[in-house]
């Protein structure tokens, strides 16, 4: 489940302060902020710049460099689909076509009901059990279109039961 906390400057300041003691602290701070708020809010940039004595452009440069950091809030769940060679050899492209049709989204988009954001990823380290998909932090191997449908249905069912 992706973090849903609304932006709070106080909370962000506390998250940043908790990582202040680390050397090269910017990445750990960004990870912690994304874990808290689901994305790197625009308002976090000046806070980080001030804390680390960097320019806002420097911080922006780091946030935009890494695929993992998002600038906008994702859906309630993030689906990462592996596009790398091992998965390709087991027809990941066919699976991706199925997912696009099924969820009616493309990569870097969120479904209309806000349930799933779809992200491409190069390698989940499950190359002997390809194709691989990660939903939130749960890894799935040998994912056929039918298995993909079952996984997303059970994700939604678990959510409804909460």
């Amino acid at each position: 489940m992706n973090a849903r906390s609304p932006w709070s400057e106080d909370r962000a300041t506390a998250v940043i302060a908790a990582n202040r003691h680390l050397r090269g602290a910017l990445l750990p701070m960004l990870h912690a902020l994304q874990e808290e708020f689901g994305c790197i809010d625009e308002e976090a940039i000046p806070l980080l710049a001030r804390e680390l004595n960097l320019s806002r452009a420097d911080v922006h440069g780091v946030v935009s460099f890494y695929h993992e950091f998002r600038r906008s809030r994702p859906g309630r769940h993030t689906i990462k689909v592996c596009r790398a060679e091992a998965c390709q050899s087991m027809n990941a492209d066919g699976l991706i076509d199925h997912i696009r049709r099924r969820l009616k989204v493309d990569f870097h988009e969120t479904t209309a009901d806000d349930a799933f954001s779809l992200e491409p990823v190069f390698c989940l380290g499950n190359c002997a059990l390809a194709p691989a998909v990660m939903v939130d932090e749960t890894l799935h191997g040998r994912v056929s279109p039918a298995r993909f449908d079952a996984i997303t249905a059970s994700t939604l069912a678990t959510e409804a039961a909460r």
Partner: protein
Amino acid sequence: MSEPLHTVALHTVYVPRDAAALSVGADETAAAIRAEATRRGIPLRIVRNGSRGMLWLETLVEVETPEGRVAYGPVMAEDVAGLFDAGFLEGADHALAHGLTEKIPYFARQERLTFARCGIIDPLSVEDYRLHGGFRGLERALAMTPAEIVTEVTDSGLRGRGGAGFPTGIKWNTVLNAQADQKYICCNADEGDSGTFADRMIMEGDPFCLIEGMTIAAIAVGATEGYIYIRSEYPHAVATMREAIRLAYDEKWLGDEIHGTGHRFHLDVRVGAGAYICGEETSMLESLEGKRGTVRAKPPLPALEGLFGKPTVVNNVLSLTSVPIILDRGADYYRDFGVGRSRGTLAFQLAGNIKHGGIVEKAFGVTLHELLYEFGGGTITGRPIRAVQAGGPLGAYLPPSLFDLPKDYEAFAAVEAMVGHGGIVVFDDSVDMARQARFAMEFCAAESCGKCTPCRIGAVRGVEVMDRIIAGEKVATNITLLNDLCEVMTDGSLCAMGGMTPIPVRSALKHFPEDFTRSPAAVAAE
């Protein structure tokens, strides 16, 4: 996470907690075994071990018997009641039974040095680790001088297992001889190559081995701080390493006074953020410093000016996890495995369209043919193997005519290929090699750090040229252009990302030319 031992004799069942096993339902299988045992009133201890690396058998459940551990797999939750009925707790026969795990030919024919404990022990039990030879290498290192440790590693012939194959001992010696107030050990655990999962498996299955290897490196070169840079795609490995580090501190294997000696070593995990280029050592250092992961020009070498400008050992996971056994058993023992200048063993990773995918740790010199057919059993689709990509997304595509090539750094280099990290991705005859060549360029365009022009722009142009070739447009002219572009990228790129992207492209063109010569008519008919 094993449960406490009771004084009464009770059955011990192993269910892996490796991410690959979890991806096919290991948690559900473990829960079903627990529930079924409770229902039947059978006392049971479930140990969550790492993976044995026979991934097509996951979830591989093992039962402790007087003769040894008996394997059942792949066990899904719905198979569990039937296994109890058949008497699997006594090692009874069943459709999913494979006999003693270590007698399974795939496993029995391996030469496990680095992965000797993986899949056997509870990864987060220091006691289990010690019972299986853990920390013996470090204990020996604590009684040696730094120069003696470096000599031992040099004499073992160990070369960096990250891909480039640079001798580890020589790198350590440079750091040892550098004068500085602070030195670092950085473990590059940004294993981003498709078809590789050995780093992930050993971090999840035997994390103390990495801690031990890094601590030995620290003592050898005089470093007191270290970082493990793990890719964010590996949350299970991150969690396991963090917990193992915490336990190692508790037991004084890390900290200010390692086991009463004057040695000090502090270790921390840092998480990447989805940038393939951070597997390149200088990009990783930039990232650890909190910057964009762009490559640095070399020199200066990281061994002299590395993390925060200080002398730094940068090694990958498998280099560092090979060190404990070298120190424990001696350089000669390790060097006696292998061929030519490729010494010791490598964890080959069979991946993609392969029937028996997994880890095969063998001495260098094993052929691709043995790995693909004798271990791998051919493709899972049952069709002929047409190509394998060896050594990651920047490695060559090889045709069956080269499958007799021995796995040896020099032998592979002689045919413009690389052993790399030991990853092997298998494709059947449905593969379109022109599309694979296009993908290599697309991947480089997506993952280039952008610092140098040949890589940043070249890869984008490469995708465009490949699109024209695939469309059957002026094919001969565009192939000439593609070759020119590959030459510029090879010669002009700052690091291996742009410099090696031409390898998969050129190998596809060289070995599978029929996939590139398309006529516009044939394309239109598709």
